[in-house]
């Protein structure tokens, strides 16, 4: 493809792509995210291709593999456009029938439709499925429209218009717009994005770096994976705009090695953007140049921390450093570096396209826009949920998530990843944003929401998270390395029947030390699971310690029985 030399050429390319497409021609989209692949979606997409050939339907229908639209629970998901007929739990054996019945005769196959659990009514259209209906899918919604390996598809839905618009603005105007939008970092800490950009722009130095954190280490969170897999160009577009605003010419994307498809799709996207002149030298003839390289992680949770991530980018061990000087002033190789999370970058094109005024009308006073949550655990509708900031936990867990399966009772929801906190039933009316979650003793984190039912033991969960964090502690600072080890030792004792009076107080004391004295956020937030379970479920700790009983029936106290 010839390099585009101006925004005008980009628009011409876009119209020529759209002209070639017939919006009325049926298109079968098959989810090919990692979740659906586990159901065998690769074979389903291949079966569609083959069957289209066999039934001689190529002129009548297109087949497209898409990224994760979010409703993982019902995978493999197949949507037939333009009518948006929604088939769920599709298997290879259903393929010939879908083609002959739905494409050939226009009949809907009842058996493959989704049944609304509350009304018991079959739902035909994707948008009518309760799981989707109550969401606001500004970011993740595009996953369902495009083949992530096709830049044409991204251009067809208006891709890179924000970049063209941004290149006509001054860097200061862009930063102002992002500041006014109220966008806060989606990676966990919720730092205002515009201010971060401004600091990096104003920092002294010729060379500046723009980095995307795609090291999604929180177990149970996979929104970043789905965005990188399903819409890599949106992240690139955000990064290019950010780099232009900041005055950076080199960028990095740090992706978890556990996400091979994300790495592959991002690689393809970078090559395509370079070939089109949207990345590289003289982007769209503006005179601005910017390149992006991918770096893979090595499976260390701590590398989600900014300084550890940058150490790892330099080819060193991923150990954090004290942040007396912010990375926006001295980060990668000592140069000013702006690090944002995948979802943050994906929000940027939207803000530039629609404007800060529009964007800041979504969400709450202190948290603007939408947030994607990964709703997992003991929940009926596992999947990715995008809602405006300020939506209540109850709406997310019950109205969208469909509540707890197997007729069990809700017990708690853990937000914020392994170092987040447990939120009990009494706080279900909490409206979810950065500040409210912090007030409840948890945090936003990257947006994992792990739902737990009555059969989950809160002490066991605290032990689980502490064990995880102890293993992932880099070992550089003593409070985190030794403190977590001691906390794990005490929690092992309590769950194995060796708990004794004073253990709870000792856990609280250790927690306080970790919060005060740890080098990085891994250590200072690590006590959250323990503190929040003691705060909301103290009776369970006491039952373990005093009565050697696990109210949820999870801990077996084998050590005690042997004696």
């Amino acid at each position, binding site marked *: 493809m010839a390099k585009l030399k101006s925004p005008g050429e980009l628009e011409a390319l876009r119209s020529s792509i759209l002209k070639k497409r017939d919006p009325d021609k049926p298109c079968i989209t098959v989810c090919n995210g990692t979740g659906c692949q586990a159901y065998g979606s690769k074979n389903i997409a291949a079966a569609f291709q083959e069957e289209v050939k066999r039934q001689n339907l190529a002129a009548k229908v297109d087949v497209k593999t898409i990224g994760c639209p979010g409703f993982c629970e019902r995978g493999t998901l197949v949507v037939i456009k333009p009518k948006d007929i929604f088939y769920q739990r599709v298997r290879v054996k259903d393929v010939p029938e879908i083609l002959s019945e739905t494409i050939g005769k226009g009949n809907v196959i009842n058996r493959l439709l989704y049944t609304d659990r509350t009304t018991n009514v079959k739902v035909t259209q994707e948008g009518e499925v309760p799981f989707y209906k109550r969401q606001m899918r500004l970011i993740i919604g595009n996953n369902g429209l495009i083949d992530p390996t096709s830049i044409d598809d991204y251009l067809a839905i208006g891709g890179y218009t924000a970049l063209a618009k941004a290149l006509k603005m001054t860097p200061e105007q862009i930063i102002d717009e992002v500041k006014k939008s109220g966008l806060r970092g989606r990676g966990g800490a919720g730092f205002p994005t515009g201010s971060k950009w401004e600091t990096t722009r104003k920092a002294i130095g010729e060379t500046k770096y723009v980095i995307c954190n795609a090291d999604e280490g929180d*177990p149970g969170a996979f929104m970043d994976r789905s965005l990188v897999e399903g819409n890599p160009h949106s992240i690139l577009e955000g990064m290019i705009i950010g780099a232009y605003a900041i005055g950076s010419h080199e960028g990095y994307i740090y992706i978890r090695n556990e996400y091979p498809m994300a790495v592959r799709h991002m690689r393809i996207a970078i090559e395509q953007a370079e070939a089109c002149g949207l990345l590289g030298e003289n982007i769209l003839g503006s005179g601005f140049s910017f390149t992006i390289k991918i*770096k893979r992680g090595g499976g260390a949770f701590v590398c989600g921390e900014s300084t550890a991530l940058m150490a790892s980018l330099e*080819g060193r061990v991923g150990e954090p450093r004290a942040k007396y000087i912010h990375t926006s002033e001295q980060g990668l190789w000592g140069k000013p570096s702006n690090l944002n999370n995948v979802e943050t970058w994906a929000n940027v094109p939207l803000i530039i396209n629609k404007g800060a005024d529009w964007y800041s009308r979504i969400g709450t006073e202190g948290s603007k826009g939408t947030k994607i949550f990964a709703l997992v655990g003991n929940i009926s509708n596992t999947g990715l949920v995008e809602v405006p900031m300020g939506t209540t936990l109850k709406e997310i867990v019950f109205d969208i998530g469909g509540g707890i399966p197997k007729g069990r009772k809700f017990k708690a929801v853990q937000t914020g990843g392994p170092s987040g906190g447990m939120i009990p039933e009494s706080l279900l009316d909490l409206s979810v944003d950065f500040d409210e979650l912090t007030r409840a003793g948890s945090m936003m984190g990257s947006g994992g929401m792990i739902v737990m039912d009555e059969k989950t033991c809160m002490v066991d969960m605290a032990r689980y998270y502490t064990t995880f964090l102890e293993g992932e502690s880099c070992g550089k600072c003593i409070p985190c390395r030794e403190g977590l080890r001691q906390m794990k030792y005490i929690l092992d004792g309590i769950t194995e029947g060796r708990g004794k009076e004073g253990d709870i107080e000792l856990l609280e004391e250790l927690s306080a030390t970790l919060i005060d004295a740890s080098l990085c956020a891994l250590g200072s937030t690590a006590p959250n699971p323990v503190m929040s379970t003691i705060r909301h479920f103290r009776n369970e700790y006491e039952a373990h310690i005093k009565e050697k009983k696990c109210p949820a029936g999870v801990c077996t106290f084998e050590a005690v029985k042997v004696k």
Partner: protein
Amino acid sequence: MAAKQLKEKVGQVLEKYQRDKSALIDILHDTQSEIGYLPKEALEEVGQGLGVPLSRVYSVATFFKAFSLKPRGRHLINVCLGTACHVRGADKVLEQMEKELGIKTGGNTPDLKFTLDTVNCVGACALGPMVIIGEDYHGEMTPEKVSEVLKNYN
């Protein structure tokens, strides 16, 4: 693997990254997928090729969970212990795996057919507990399903 062959393979990986020191982690990833693990000789070769002290190569290779300094079996089994899998009973699946294979987590079967390991989340939480063998994802695992799944691998 013969010394010469190892040197050649590491050399190719180094060239792919233009002997860029900052690409150390990527280089170790690619070396490991070429050789199957990271023997001492490979680490030495990488260090020399990049002009990085062996101590630093070793520290990176042992810091990150993705790298193995010991030979691994033909099929790498990763039992996901992510939170979503944990609350659905992943530890029982791992226990059964250990029993079935007669090895502990992190170990190889004596015939080098399997290596058993754990992973902290692959993001396929709807299907938890997940077990990943090579590139195959096995969802909704139970201790009862373990032996059946293992039968598919030679």
